[in-house]
């Protein structure tokens, strides 16, 4: 027996695959690009949802990981396209245009950043945690602006999208499928994590820190590991996003980006597996439907967000599938 939410999730995953395939049949390439954007932004949200949804960690600094992933792509690809090694001495490090290597670097770099930022920020909680993660994000943002080697404020462009063995990544549907498969793999991982011993302990730490300590587990350790996993996933999304646009700029690191990723999660449903997918899809849809009428379309986004927070605590997923049922 599938729960209502699981049925809904399967339908959503199918819809996200069906839309670009239909668009392909109708030769609507732009829609494929939009769907790719949804898949990648959803991935960033799935990352945040592990920290925010399961762990209750309100991070307003996830743009840091998104941007680090973006710059991992930008730096590696820029050096590859210019045939300039990143480092010659003491040992040679060359750029690359191979996506799997770029992804790996993005994951490792953002995980390390999350380890450092998390180790410092997780000593605080509540509003202080929000502020300190925000501060770390903004530090990286201003650093990127002043980093002239990679375009500074103007950002770094890539001429050709990076390569994936056996695929033509310049073909929109093939690049979409890459992003989609990664999203699905991470969603499966995220679903299993939520039900794992670690997920149970992390969710308990969100509800009662004292309870977790009383059974002999350390909330700080649980949260730090969650923050690192969360940051690594958002970093991977950043690398894909930069590759989609063939461009990375400090904007990816700005706190607006952190806010947007959080908005995906809240609109879709905090702690709900497919919450970020729904949230990212609604965001992109509103941007392109309402954005056509008015450049102030975010007023409507704000209204939707307000309605969600006031009336549907489980976001859109919660409004459709009802209150979360405890897993067995």
């Amino acid at each position: 027996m599938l729960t209502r939410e699981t049925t809904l999730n399967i339908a959503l995953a199918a819809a996200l695959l069906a839309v670009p395939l239909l668009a392909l049949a109708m030769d609507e390439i732009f829609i494929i690009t939009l769907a790719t954007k949804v898949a990648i932004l959803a991935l960033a949200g799935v990352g945040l949802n592990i920290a925010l949804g399961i762990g209750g960690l309100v991070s307003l600094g996830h743009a840091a990981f998104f941007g680090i992933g973006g710059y991992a792509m930008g730096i590696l690809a820029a050096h590859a396209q210019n045939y300039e090694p990143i480092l010659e001495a003491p040992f040679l490090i060359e750029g690359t245009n191979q996506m799997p290597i770029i992804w790996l670097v993005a994951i490792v770099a953002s995980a390390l950043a999350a380890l450092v930022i998390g180790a410092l920020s997780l000593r605080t909680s509540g509003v202080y945690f929000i502020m300190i993660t925000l501060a770390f994000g903004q530090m990286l943002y201003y650093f990127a602006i002043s980093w002239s080697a990679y375009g500074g404020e103007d950002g770094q462009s890539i001429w050709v999208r990076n390569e994936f063995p056996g695929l033509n990544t310049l073909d929109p549907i093939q690049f979409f499928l890459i992003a989609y498969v990664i999203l699905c793999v991470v969603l499966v991982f995220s679903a299993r994590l939520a039900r794992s011993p670690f997920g149970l302990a992390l969710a308990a730490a969100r509800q009662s820190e004292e309870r977790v300590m009383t059974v002999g587990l350390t909330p700080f350790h649980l949260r730090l590991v969650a923050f690192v996993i969360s940051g690594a996933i958002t970093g991977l999304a950043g690398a894909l996003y930069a590759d989609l646009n063939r461009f990375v700029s400090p904007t990816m690191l700005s706190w607006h980006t952190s806010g947007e990723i959080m908005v995906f999660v809240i609109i879709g449903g905090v702690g709900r597996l497919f919450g970020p997918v729904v949230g990212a899809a609604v965001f992109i849809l509103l941007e392109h439907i309402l954005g056509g009428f008015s450049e102030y379309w975010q007023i409507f986004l704000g209204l939707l967000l307000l309605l969600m927070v006031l009336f549907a605590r489980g976001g859109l997923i919660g409004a459709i599938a009802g209150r979360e049922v405890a897993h067995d």
Partner: protein
Amino acid sequence: MTDMTPVLKVEGISKSFGALKASDNVSLDLRPGEIHALIGPNGAGKSTLIKQISGSLKPDSGRIEVLGRDVTDLDTVARARLGLGRTFQISSLAMEFTVLQNVVLGALGARGRAFSFLRNVMKDKALLEPAQRALERVGLQDEAQRRTADLSHGQRRQLEVAVALTLQPKLFLMDEPMAGLGASGSKALTGFLDELRHEAPILLVEHDMDAVFALADRISVLVYGAVIATGTADEIRANAEVRRAYLGEEDAA
């Protein structure tokens, strides 16, 4: 006679909040197989004392030993790992979890390895079996799938005890486990604790005087942060100072 070294030894701990002496040179111990009750009027410093023993509050001076080991500088997590099983006066359960999930969390804590990311924790027999056994022992087996927030206050107290059981502690620290239980629930729990003391001794903070005098091998009376008497139920009943400071107050009321 088996080894009678105390499982818990509190030696002269003091704790002040400004001018208020919440703990005033408190010494007490807990011996194998006993229930040692801690009583005292409201504001006597029972909660402060419990917090210092469990590790969430650091005493200004004095020392605390668990199984002969100095734990004064250890935190709550380390003391839990050494075998201190605590239940709370104000329930600290994970309210969104099912009853079963709360006890599984206890079993997971007892196993000590929470960094497993892919296996379904609620299908792990090694965790489910002790968890279900603990629920059966407190009589909550029929509530296993209910949301913890939907339990009555009394049932939450029982669940607190069940979680503590999954830890297989060397001693229990129970803060008012009877509160919120009806007469029959209170009687059932009294019978249960009576047996439990042979598994691990219990330091019991309790307002239910019937339960305290029925259960306790020894009673310590705390007044204004200081232990004014320690002894058997009969000794405490006969103690003039206790009568004046505590029992007398109630008689007068």
